[in-house]
């Protein structure tokens, strides 16, 4: 896989030298899929085709996709209210995701969950979560199962910067460390818990500093740099698979859109948003792939077009899918006999 001469260091970015070209191209396509999905969801919402609220992850695609590079369908993730990207990165079908947003019976949760509870247990996605920090102890429980049942999977626990001040975060990290469980805590630090900045809410400058309190490695990386995220998660997953216990990876990133549909953006400046938009994780990853000859501009455009077509087809599938029967409002509360 090394591109350099024997005996010479390979100075290419981690992802380029580690993953096969077809996997890198697939990753780029999935990042486009995430962005087009979010845009499609937003558009459907603005047109009044779907109701409720949603939390878009545009601008955070590298964090979701690079984190999932090391994972198979056996590996688990727990996700957050801003979880569409995680779900797609883990391998979900965007048609069934849109069907869920449209509240249809064909959706992943048969229309019972919607955006904030989207899950795909088959691909190891144990679910988004409407409660900040709700997934942290659950991820530790999934890791406990792996250890007790002798399974080789690792669990990735996505959480946001806001969750680092929840008690559940501290309890979960402590238990994961005490029991040396195969779990990786991946913080997507997008700088704001709704409107409250990390500076105003958190006593330590970096969330990865919290790791020291739980005797686990903690690292902060540029979350918009695909390769940097992939490298940090790679090391953490290797440590987990080797039975050495949990790690904390902090991806510094930014959401281009507001917190949810009610956000008027009164807590941040246009300059700040523009500055982060210039660090677009998809554009950066694509440029890197082109620079290292993984694909050319025309091929990248083709991948983006494929993603857009999948999203369009997904929305069409959702629109044509049946609604759940109103008579079945209590179905799935308990197991069916």
């Amino acid at each position, binding site marked *: 896989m090394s591109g350099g001469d024997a005996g010479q260091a390979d100075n290419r970015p981690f992802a380029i030298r580690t993953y096969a070209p077809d996997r890198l191209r697939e990753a780029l396509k999935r990042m486009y899929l995430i962005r087009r999905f979010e845009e499609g969801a937003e558009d459907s919402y603005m047109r009044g085709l779907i109701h409720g609220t949603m939390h878009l992850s545009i601008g955070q695609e590298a964090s979701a996709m690079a984190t999932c590079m090391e994972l198979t369908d056996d590996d688990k993730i727990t996700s957050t209210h801003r979880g569409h990207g995680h779900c797609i990165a883990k391998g979900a079908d965007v048609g069934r995701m849109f069907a869920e947003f449209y509240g249809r019976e064909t959706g992943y949760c048969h229309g019972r969950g919607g955006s904030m509870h989207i899950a795909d247990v088959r691909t190891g996605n144990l679910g988004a979560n409407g409660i900040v920090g709700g997934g942290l102890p659950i991820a530790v429980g999934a890791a*406990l199962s792996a250890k007790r049942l002798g399974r080789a999977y690792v669990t990735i626990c996505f959480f946001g910067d806001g969750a680092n001040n929840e008690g559940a975060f501290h*309890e979960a990290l402590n238990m994961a460390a005490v029991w040396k469980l195969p779990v990786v805590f991946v913080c997507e630090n997008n700088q704001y818990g709704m409107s409250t900045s990390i500076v105003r809410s958190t006593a330590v400058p970096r969330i990865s500093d919290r790791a020291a309190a739980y005797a686990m490695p903690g690292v902060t990386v540029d979350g918009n740099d695909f390769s940097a995220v992939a490298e940090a998660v790679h090391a953490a997953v290797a440590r987990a698979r080797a039975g050495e216990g949990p790690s904390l990876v902090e991806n510094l990133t930014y959401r281009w859109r507001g917190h949810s549909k009610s956000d008027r953006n009164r807590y941040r400046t246009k300059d700040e948003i523009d500055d982060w938009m210039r660090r677009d994780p998809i554009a950066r990853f694509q440029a890197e792939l082109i620079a290292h000859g993984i694909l050319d501009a025309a091929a990248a455009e083709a991948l983006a077009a494929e993603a857009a077509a999948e999203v369009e087809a997904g929305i069409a599938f959702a629109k044509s899918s049946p609604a759940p029967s109103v008579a079945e409002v209590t179905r799935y509360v308990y197991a069916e006999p």
Partner: protein
Amino acid sequence: MNSLADAGLRVLSYSEAIREAMALAMEADPTVILMGEDIGVYGGAFQVTLDLIDRFGPDRVMDTPISELGGAGVAVGAALTGLKPVYEFQFSDFAMLAMEQIVNQAAKLRYMLGGEASVPVVFRLPSGSGTGAAAQHSQSIEAWFGHVPGLKVLQPATPEDAKGMLLAALADPDPVMIFEHKLLYKTKGPVPEGHYVTPIGRASVRRPGSDLSIVAGSIMMHRALDAADRLAADGIRAEVIDLRSIRPIDHETILASVRKTGRLMVVYEGVKAFGVGAEISALVAESDAFDYLDAPILRLGAADAPVPYNPDLERASVPQVDTIEAAARRLVRREV
């Protein structure tokens, strides 16, 4: 109890019965694990797990940090991924620290995920007053969880049910909360050998009668039976129904009894307002059994106060045999 032993029935205490259920389940199913604070070498605050750590080791009898939210959440995540954890809250009061994981996660995951997930976790909760432990270690909060779709909520009154309910809970694919009464741990009764289940959602008529129906669970069922003995001396025949399950609730057994007796009293240890009694009263009021009532429905619950420390105050704050007896007499005389 000697008469039971003489009759060839095996007698165990309530806590021995619970321990036997856990041991049987762990022997039969390697995915069953126990979690909780000080359940290992300490044996549990009420000595229920006792020596199970010696038999099954620390990997299956796991001491957890004092982190009820995290501990309950780890149990939920483990249940979601193939284990069957039995998580012991040291006192039921401490479940309030874990409400998020119990109510937002465990209870709702199956539904939120459209039936694609199962959370077969069992929560054990030592509950109730009478130990002098005051306001934060004596509450009866089972009705809170009766309000939550997705949970099953049980309260065994006898050693036989304590074992059978735990085994039923472990066989159930959904989260089950078992409220064990602290004053019952040392009480004894016949317990069948081997594996059996007490069906979830079925009340039991412990004493048939024709003059009034007393619906009570857990320790209140025993107090109701004692009161019924006294009433019988005066020819008042009380029917005593052991509620056993708060969610789901056994409508049919309750309504059939009311149709027969025409009088209903509900006795429970939780605070009277918005409690189990309100639910049962309403289900009677909403049914045909309402037409059979010869007197207003009577609720006996805890005083509208935190559980007090002083022993006289503590006793006075929850229904006792005397108060149940007196209330039953008033009900029969229509003085309510």
